[in-house]
């Protein structure tokens, strides 16, 4: 109970700190909207009957948003907190590490939801984005967000042990995310990518998240254009859960509270 209460408190504090860092707000919240604006304005063609590139792109951007606000944000900010001595100080208080992680998960969930709402609102207003067409799709959308957030939060915390310093964290983490975005069918239509790129992307969660989001935002007929001729929903859930477990195991075993 105490763990949860302090976790909620940490979550509030994390959000407060996040909102006061203008760069992070712009980067994680508005950057995807800017990308949508740019790509949506450049690529006006339809990629299949009734499917505009913007429609395809929004699905990918929402999936990317989960990775940005979970994995990327945490894998960069936690090493900085380690450098600053924040983590070491917390380690000396009666607050449990679980509360700290709950706080991070709250931050990720809230910033993801805001980002998704902005993308959908902006997409609908500027590019005539179609909303999910059935209750089943809305439900799938919801669990993809929840499981996806957990997954990228866990992986972000686990990966935060990799960068040697807060200063270098961004240089280590950002390229991984950008490469996965190209390989996973965010910026390009996935089926147009070389086979080896598709296979490589299929190891990581982002490909499955984008595919899942396409199943929510694109018409059912589009499934014929997918590599597997199926949305592979069950497989997506399993792969996301496996990565979540890997992330949690690494976080528990390897998490470092200070550099020395």
């Amino acid at each position, binding site marked *: 109970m105490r763990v949860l209460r302090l976790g909620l408190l940490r979550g509030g504090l994390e959000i407060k700190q996040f909102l006061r860092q203008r760069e992070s707000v712009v980067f994680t919240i508005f950057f995807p909207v800017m990308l949508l604006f740019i790509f949506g304005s450049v690529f006006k063609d339809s990629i299949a009957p009734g499917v505009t590139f913007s429609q395809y792109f929004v699905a990918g951007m929402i999936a990317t948003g989960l990775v940005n606000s979970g994995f990327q944000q945490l894998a960069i900010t936690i090493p900085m907190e380690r450098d600053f001595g924040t983590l*070491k100080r917390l380690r000396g208080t*009666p607050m449990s590490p679980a509360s700290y992680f709950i706080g991070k998960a709250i931050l990720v969930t809230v910033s993801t939801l805001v980002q998704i709402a902005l993308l959908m609102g902006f997409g609908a207003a500027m590019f005539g984005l179609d909303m999910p067409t059935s209750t089943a799709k809305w439900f799938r959308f919801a669990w993809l967000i929840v499981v996806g957030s957990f997954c990228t939060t866990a992986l972000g915390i686990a990966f935060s042990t990799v960068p040697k310093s807060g200063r270098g964290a961004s240089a280590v983490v950002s390229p991984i995310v950008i490469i996965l975005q190209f390989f996973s069918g965010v910026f390009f239509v996935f089926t147009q990518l070389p086979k080896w790129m598709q296979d490589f992307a299929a190891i990581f969660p982002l490909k499955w998240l984008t595919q899942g989001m396409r199943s929510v935002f694109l018409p059912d007929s589009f499934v014929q254009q997918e590599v597997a001729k199926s949305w592979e929903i069950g497989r997506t859930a399993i792969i996301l859960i496996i990565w979540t477990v890997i992330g949690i195991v690494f976080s528990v075993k390897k998490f470092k509270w200070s550099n020395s």
Partner: protein
Amino acid sequence: MSTSAISIKGLTKKYDGKFAVAGIDLEVAYGEIFAILGPNGAGKTTTVEILEGYRSRDSGEVRVLGDDPQALGEKKYSWRERIGIVLQSSADAGDLSVRETVHHFAKYYERAKDPESVIALTGLSEKADDKIRNLSGGQRRRLDVALGIIGSPELLFLDEPTTGFDPEARRAFWELIKQLRDEGTTILLTTHYLDEAEALADRVAVIAGGKIIEISPPETLGGRHLAQARVTWVEGGKSHERLTSTPTNDVATISARLGGEIPELQVIRPSLEDIYLQMIGGQE
């Protein structure tokens, strides 16, 4: 053993095969201000971080408030309720205000002090609504102390608390520490500054090369109270120097011999610094 706030027997810790702490024994009584004095790399911080539960030891016995900080198990959080830690340096939470931060940390503790009175006690009332990133080094350090004492700790660890303070701020800080001692807080202080140890500590341990050289009250450290004074003067155009345990008597004798004033007379007693440098110098 349970009568001491801190009890250490035969503590060792190696890094890369070299001893950072090479067999330390010490006891800190409840209610005491105990200072650990030593040069950089002497093993001060390693020792303190073992006591705080941040590091594991290689051998020896350690009890802090009656428990082994390395084997607390379920007791971990209740033990941390009873200690306060002020680390060497920190630069965190720059986007929060002093007030927000102190109030937030107060919620971690069952027996937290009133955050507003802690802000006042640490002299941060005027800065309470300032962002932490805009504080001066000294103000930031006072915030570190505020966060260290917010949980009403029985035992407070202060690792080089006044580094970067101006003299006035340092004196104000000492008053704060004395006030905490008067409230019954046991304090373990590590410092580079001899005047700080002299002003605050009931007892001082001098540590170098991972070993304790001496533990005593600051007044008698290194046999300082017994040490001879050095008398220097000029007589017959030449400098003279004499080590003596009766300087007053010697000066009177010289004065009588020279018929009054003694040219360039100096009587020098060893300062704590002289004693300290001699002690750690002998270790190199």
